[in-house]
């Protein structure tokens, strides 16, 4: 630890930083424009989420908990699209629901509308949007006991009693699975107040940074499946045999990972060469 770093070191570090930034920009721009799609073989956590969704009884509702906003759209967006595509194919009814990130339900609805057109699904019959509800944990607890009392109307102001998809949906027993798609630490609420109490199945789609933290829950069977960030979404698209955003972006992802790995190797070579010279 030197008291004052010499200026030469400073400029060299700065030059290295700028080079790294430039290389990253070029890599991502080039791969996105070139647009080759790549497929990714599904890993066990992805497959178990797929199987868990397949196994949900047809009459039960699936809750898509949209706990993300534009900040983490890069990962959560493709995850949401993959899950919704699967639900439209299996014919499960689902409800979009927000309780952490206020813009979440709107962003998910935009994805759902695009896909609904493709699969000729109708809003209100095949899917609904509960919108954003406040009250966090207390509300989640209440929701398990009485869904109509908490939701009352959908995001567009229609009373849920008028929506065919919500017919017969009363409490946690009518929910086949909760799929938490999130950019922050929201999982524990569903585990503590739904899974831990009523045994509701939870599917989990976190961003990359939270993936290792999710495995203790997977191991304890508190969650039924897991999408590992964007890679998980690409794997899911592979299971569904489609090429969505995730598959295209995985190429850019591959390229930038290679860049970082090369950087680490270069850094080590430089370190050992400098080390030798000093020795």
């Amino acid at each position, binding site marked *: 630890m030197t008291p004052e770093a010499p200026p030469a070191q400073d400029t060299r570090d700065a030059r290295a930083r700028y080079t790294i930034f430039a290389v990253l920009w070029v890599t991502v721009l080039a791969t996105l424009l070139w647009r080759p799609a790549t497929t*990714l073989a599904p890993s066990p956590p992805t497959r178990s989420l797929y199987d868990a969704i397949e196994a949900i009884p047809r009459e039960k509702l699936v809750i898509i908990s949209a706990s993300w906003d534009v900040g983490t759209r890069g990962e959560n967006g493709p995850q949401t699209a993959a899950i919704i595509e699967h639900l439209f194919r299996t014919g499960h009814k689902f409800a979009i629901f927000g309780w952490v990130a206020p813009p979440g339900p709107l962003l998910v609805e935009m994805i759902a509308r695009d896909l609904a057109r493709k699969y000729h699904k109708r809003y209100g019959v095949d899917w609904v949007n509960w919108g954003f509800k406040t009250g966090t944990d*207390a509300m989640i607890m209440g929701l398990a006991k009485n869904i109509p009392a908490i939701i009352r109307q959908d995001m567009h102001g229609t009373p849920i009693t008028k929506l065919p998809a919500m017919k017969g949906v009363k409490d946690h027993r009518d929910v086949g699975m909760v799929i938490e798609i999130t950019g922050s630490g929201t999982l524990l609420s569903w585990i503590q107040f739904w899974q831990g109490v009523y045994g509701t199945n939870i599917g989990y789609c976190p961003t990359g940074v939270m993936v290792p*933290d999710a495995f203790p829950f997977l191991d304890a069977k508190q969650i039924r499946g897991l999408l590992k960030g964007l890679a998980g979404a690409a794997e899911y698209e592979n299971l569904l045999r489609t090429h969505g955003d995730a598959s295209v972006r995985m190429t850019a992802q591959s390229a930038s990972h290679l860049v970082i790995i090369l950087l680490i190797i270069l850094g080590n070579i430089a370190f050992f060469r400098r080390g030798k010279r000093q020795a």
Partner: protein
Amino acid sequence: MLQILHNAWPWICKAFQPVHGTRLLVYVCGTTAAWILLFWVLHLLPARQKRGLIVACTFLAGLFYSLEFFLPAKASWLPGGKNPLSDLVVPMGNAVSVVFAFTLALGLINLCLVHGRSLAQAKPGWHNSLAFFLALISMTVFGLWQSYVKDGPQRTLFGLSGASVHRVDDVLFSGLFQPLGATMFSILAFYIASAAFRAFRVRTAEAAFMMAAAFVVMLGQVPVGYWLTHWLPMPEHNPLGYLRFEVLANWILNNWSMAAIRAIEFGIAVGALAMALRIWLSLERGSFFEVREGPR
């Protein structure tokens, strides 16, 4: 004591019935006056007793969720045969979020003071403070405005309909607020790259372990890693298959890092439990928990 409570119970229930009109106003004002009076009297207490009051309130507050949890859901010895606190959990959660919502102006006051001063004294960078105020005011006004006109499609305020207000709100929210946040977030991509370049040097065993795990997980989650080792057999057929990047990455996440994270979390859980006990039982010391007499 219990007998008195038993006799008074219907009266208490009656007092908590919803009221409307003038009576509501009287009730609300009366409660406010009683509250202020109560705290005025409490303020006259000496510091020692104020401290005792805080200790008692903290203990009672902590008792709420604890009792709700540790008492069984149903038992014959409980009043009414079931857990009396379970029904209060949801209203309690609502009350806490309302109480916190009322602190919303605390931060706002502070920010306005700082930027107001910079604007009034025309400090260097005052135009930034001006931008701050413009952003703050327009976001608040159009946000509230929009939620007012949203209640009904025909509602207008100052002659503006929902659609035109919505357009302004869209510019502020979708045009500025969201891209700003998302871009700040994405800058991490650059920082993570330069940090990896600078810091991942195999100097010690620790660094080597960390780097190796990062390497495998990074490669195991992208198609290029899959491609690099796709010539290896699948792990079901041959143990060599465990060296495939995607298999190895998943194995590390599922067994190795999983156990380490679990161990770290156990430690943190006990640490948090200890901290919670110290607060609940008022064993914690420090300026925050002391009560002093008057200004110093």
